[in-house]
């Protein structure tokens, strides 16, 4: 206790940044005192103790449970639906189908494509056919099973290349292309390849990854008169609000979506699902709240994926490491409808390294498979799988170290963004150098070491780099910081915290700016009824979007406080500063007033500061960069791969919280390990078109033992003051971009064999051994 000036709500001795004059932007922070520290989550207790109420925890006394009948075929026409038995079952309150008048609404996909909510043509396995509300989940599922549907099974196609072949079943009446091929070109490809000393060409394949957030997809829908309230596990409550309002023909004001806590999204919860509309319709029909959460099997079939794709990359390089040309082609499929998350496969090829001559082409196709949704860094890990293995191969061919080759080709401006804007900051060089140093890249063994009973376990190292196509954040965002009469703060923010620590980081910004203690800050977020507009949390843009707006709102509070205090202290506001919860006169610290004693503030009761996210600087590219290094052990007799260690260096601008930073890095590596080594959707493509591995046993997520205990995050802490007022860039997606390619390169280093298809498993390694055996 520090005597009479002790402030229980304010940190003492914490220098609060200077308050800009009204109408002026705050100066860059420079050195921070709270932001950047490794601080635990402000809601950690709630999350760990189970006190946090996630949408799946929401319950009401008269609540019913919804369940959806789904098409078991990849392509079928619904000829009739007989619900008579289901409707008579005890505890069943509603059964809805395409024939139910209010359920005859349109569901929007991308590119303006709409179908009926319960469309008679089911173009993928798991499409919704009917739905039930009952008093228990068991009775709801019993009723679903009692619905009799007559399907006319139609021919299907599962594979994107086969979808383009003549005679393939036409999923939308024409050929199976989703629009025209996307083509990007710069320079002169022919010239580029003619200048190269080495030209390599390789085909790559990445398999479809399924979304697996811990919390299942779903919601609770409840009506009060004509107001619909939805508790949804969502990355963006405003996005859910607008889709549901559109589908049900309601004013936005009458749809309130709440998602304070949510258990992970990774891109699959950026949008509303049919389940949201169905729960709302069931709740309306029964006059009771309806909870509708999908089973894991349903989410695997219907809530999106990282699209599978075929890629071909041809690359030219001079002996001195100068890249001369890239030619890249890809064929992907976002499933049965135009989907988000199918693009950007070529982005790293366009952008990551200086290369004057580039041509890329992407063909998106319809297949009778689940519709894609954005999946952590859409397109990028796939493109990096090709590009970064190719860079490794080029380096070997010209006898250059892979890190050196990359260092030689670092761009200072964006080659792919319109107008070729310079980057605000580019930490690619630092990522490569500091990462290599932390890993011990230069001292890596020249000869592969072997161990095991017969020397059949080989060790190898590999690395890869990455860039994320956005990551600077952007308007709009509106933040309100409410200062209560005792000096405590309420932070009001529309954005969701996906579990990444958004709330914690924002509270730290308020603490940094006002000096108010972290535990005296209450955060209200992700509620369209009470919090301000925010775009969904995705694209690694939440921190760079929201944190400057939070800072602006805190600055607004300070400006008002100083103006009010100026009256009490009979001086000019420009002469005042905030120190330890007091407003003091600069140069005369004895002349001061406690924030809570300021007369005008006391009269008003609560002070409201509003902050807006301003525009990004014009003609500048704001991008995060990455480099990752790993060591693997490969059992050459059994094909088992063990990832031994990982070092990840990431430039995401200012490191806002070292703990959440490390969490993101380790999480991204974990997902990248899944992409590289274990995960792949398997379809029964030759027979039924159904998904074979729709559960956690058959769809193999990496387990704790598949992830190395030895993981190191090397923060490249480069505040990007030109980008925004907190200096932050995005981190959540870049962290998973280079991982898989780094592993593939390490496996090549260990075995001398290049695996161009994901996942690299004992199956694929032994399969290659079998093929080589047959070839003799």
């Amino acid at each position: 206790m520090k005597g009479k000036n002790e402030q229980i709500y304010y940190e003492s001795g914490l220098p609060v940044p200077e308050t800009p004059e009204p109408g002026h932007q705050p100066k860059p922070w420079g050195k921070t005192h709270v932001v950047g520290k490794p601080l635990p989550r402000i809601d950690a207790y709630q999350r760990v103790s189970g006190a946090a109420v996630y949408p799946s925890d929401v319950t009401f006394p008269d609540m019913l449970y919804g369940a959806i009948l789904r098409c078991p075929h990849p392509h079928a026409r619904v000829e009739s639906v007989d619900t008579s038995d289901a409707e008579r079952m005890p505890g069943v309150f509603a059964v809805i189908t395409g024939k139910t008048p209010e359920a005859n609404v349109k569901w929007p996909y991308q590119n303006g494509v709409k179908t009926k909510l319960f469309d008679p043509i089911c173009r993928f396995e798991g499409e919704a056919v009917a739905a039930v509300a009952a008093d228990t989940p068991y009775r709801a599922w019993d009723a679903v099973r009692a619905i009799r549907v007559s399907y006319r099974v139609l021919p299907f196609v599962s594979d994107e290349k086969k979808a383009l072949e003549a005679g393939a079943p036409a999923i939308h009446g024409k050929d199976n292309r989703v629009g025209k091929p996307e083509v990007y070109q710069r320079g002169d490809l022919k010239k580029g390849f003619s200048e190269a000393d080495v030209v390599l060409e390789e085909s790559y394949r990445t398999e479809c990854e399924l979304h697996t957030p811990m919390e299942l997809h779903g919601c609770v829908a409840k009506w009060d008169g004509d107001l619909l309230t939805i508790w949804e596990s969502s990355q963006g409550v405003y996005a859910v609000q607008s889709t549901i309002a559109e589908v049900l023909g309601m004013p936005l004001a009458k749809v309130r979506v709440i998602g304070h806590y949510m258990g992970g999204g990774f891109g699959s919860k950026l949008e509303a699902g049919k389940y949201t509309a169905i729960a709302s319709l069931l709740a309306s029909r029964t006059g009771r709240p309806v909870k509708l959460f999908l089973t894991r099997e349903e989410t695997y079939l219907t809530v999106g994926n990282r699209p599978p794709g075929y890629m071909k990359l041809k690359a030219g390089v001079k002996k001195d490491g100068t890249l001369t040309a890239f030619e890249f082609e890809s064929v992907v499929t976002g499933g049965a409808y135009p989907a988000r998350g199918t693009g950007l496969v070529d982005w790293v090829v366009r952008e990551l390294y200086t290369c004057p001559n580039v041509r890329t082409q992407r063909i998106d196709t319809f297949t009778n498979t689940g519709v894609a949704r954005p999946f952590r860094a859409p397109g990028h890990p796939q493109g990096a799988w090709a590009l970064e293995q190719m860079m490794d191969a080029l380096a070997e061919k010209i006898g250059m170290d892979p890190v050196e080759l990359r260092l030689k080709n670092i761009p200072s401006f964006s080659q792919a963004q319109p107008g070729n804007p310079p980057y605000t900051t580019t930490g690619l060089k630092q990522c490569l150098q500091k990462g290599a140093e932390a890993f011990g890249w230069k001292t890596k063994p020249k000869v592969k070491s072997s161990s095991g009973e017969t020397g059949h376990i080989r060790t190898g190292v590999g690395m890869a780099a990455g860039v994320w196509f956005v990551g600077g954040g952007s308007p709009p965002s509106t933040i309100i910081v409410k200062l209560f009469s005792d000096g405590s703060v309420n932070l009001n923010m529309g954005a969701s915290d996906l579990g990444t620590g958004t709330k914690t980081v924002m509270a730290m910004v308020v603490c940094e700016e006002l000096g108010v203690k972290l535990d005296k800050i209450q955060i209200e977020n992700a509620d369209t009824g009470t919090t301000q507009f925010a775009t969904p949390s995705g694209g690694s843009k939440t921190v760079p979007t929201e944190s400057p707006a939070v800072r602006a709102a805190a600055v607004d509070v300070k400006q008002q406080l100083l103006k009010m205090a100026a009256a009490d202290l009979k001086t000019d506001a420009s002469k005042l500063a905030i120190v330890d919860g007091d407003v003091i006169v600069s140069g005369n610290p004895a002349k001061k007033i406690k924030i809570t004693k300021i007369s005008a503030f006391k009269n008003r009761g609560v002070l409201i500061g509003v902050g807006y996210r301003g525009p990004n600087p014009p003609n500048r590219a704001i991008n995060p960069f990455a480099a990752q290094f790993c060591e693997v052990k490969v059992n050459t007799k059994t094909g088992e791969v063990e990832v031994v260690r990982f070092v990840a260096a990431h430039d995401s601008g200012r490191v806002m919280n070292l703990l959440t930073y490390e969490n993101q890095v380790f999480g991204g590596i974990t997902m990248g390990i899944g992409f590289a080594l274990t995960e792949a959707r398997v379809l029964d493509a030759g027979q039924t078109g159904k998904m074979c591995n729709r559960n956690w046993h058959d769809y193999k997520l990496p387990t704790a033992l598949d992830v190395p205990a030895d993981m190191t995050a090397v923060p490249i802490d480069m505040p990007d003051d030109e980008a925004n007022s907190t200096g932050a860039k995005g981190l959540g997606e870049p962290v998973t971009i280079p991982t898989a390619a780094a592993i593939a390169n390490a496996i090549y280093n260990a075995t001398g064999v290049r695996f161009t298809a994901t996942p690299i498993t004992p199956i694929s390694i032994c399969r290659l051994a079998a093929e080589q055996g047959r070839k003799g």
Partner: protein
Amino acid sequence: MLPQFSYVRASSLREAVKHLSNQGARLHAGGTDLLGCLREGIFQADTVVSISRLDKLRGINETLDGGLRIGSLTTVSEVAKSDVVSDRFPGLSQAASQVASPQLRNQGTVGGNICQKPRCWYYRGELHCLRKGGDMCYALAGENQYHCIFGSDNKCCIVYPSDMAPVLVALDAEARISGPGGDRVVPMGKFYVLPGDNVEKETVLEPGEIVTEVLLPRASKNLRSSYRKVRARRTWDFALAGVALAILFEGDKVKGARVVLSGAAPIPWRAKEVEEIITGQRLDAKTIAKASGASVKNAEPLEHNGYKIPLFIGLLEEQLAAIAKT
């Protein structure tokens, strides 16, 4: 969602057998497999008969002849942690510790492990396959990367998923079974049923029968055993390929051998070709190479599981070399 069923907790083995003799009754021990099967609708259960009260079926004891008796309700974890098991039958200890995940090992029982249902994704899915009484095996011409290379009889190409079963077969263990007609003892080597004999059964158990204990014969001090499986990820996964070895050494020569493969066939698969080649030999590099190659001589790989050929060869090379050094 689980279907509706009634639940009985038997207070004696006799009572359990009586309940299980009724049509539609299903045994519940650890429940790790049963509940999944019920949820996935692989079979129905009118009555679930719990044997959790039958404490006599728990525990690991020495038998009069110096062997071991493991009660069928003993958990997989208890076997994995048992000193007497790891002393005498390290292979069984290794197998138990490679089963599933810690949670499943704590809950799953020895009886359940050796009586579990197959993991074929067609069988576990919505399709009415031959093993479920339907008219075709979807895996034979489908996605069969996890399926068998021996013993499908061109009917059903599951692999038997148990890790403990191949070791028990290799160790010449027996299963004691109680049923409506009294007790019987069946060697583990004759406990499993090939699709050619009955495609809807995995074991010889008849309705109403319960495995009550597993009996291991006395281990000679020259007996070495091991089990290792290769899987698609490092835990919580069934075998792509596994090998159980039980080798009786005389000096550095093999006096007798049992080599049993998992992930290879609808039953634990004895690799008799390997046993014959190594018997009477030193486990030197040449013998190991010859024996390992012979393990897959009669394999009939399917479209997507040809990788199991080099995998079994590689695994046997590794494991034979390892057991020679222990």
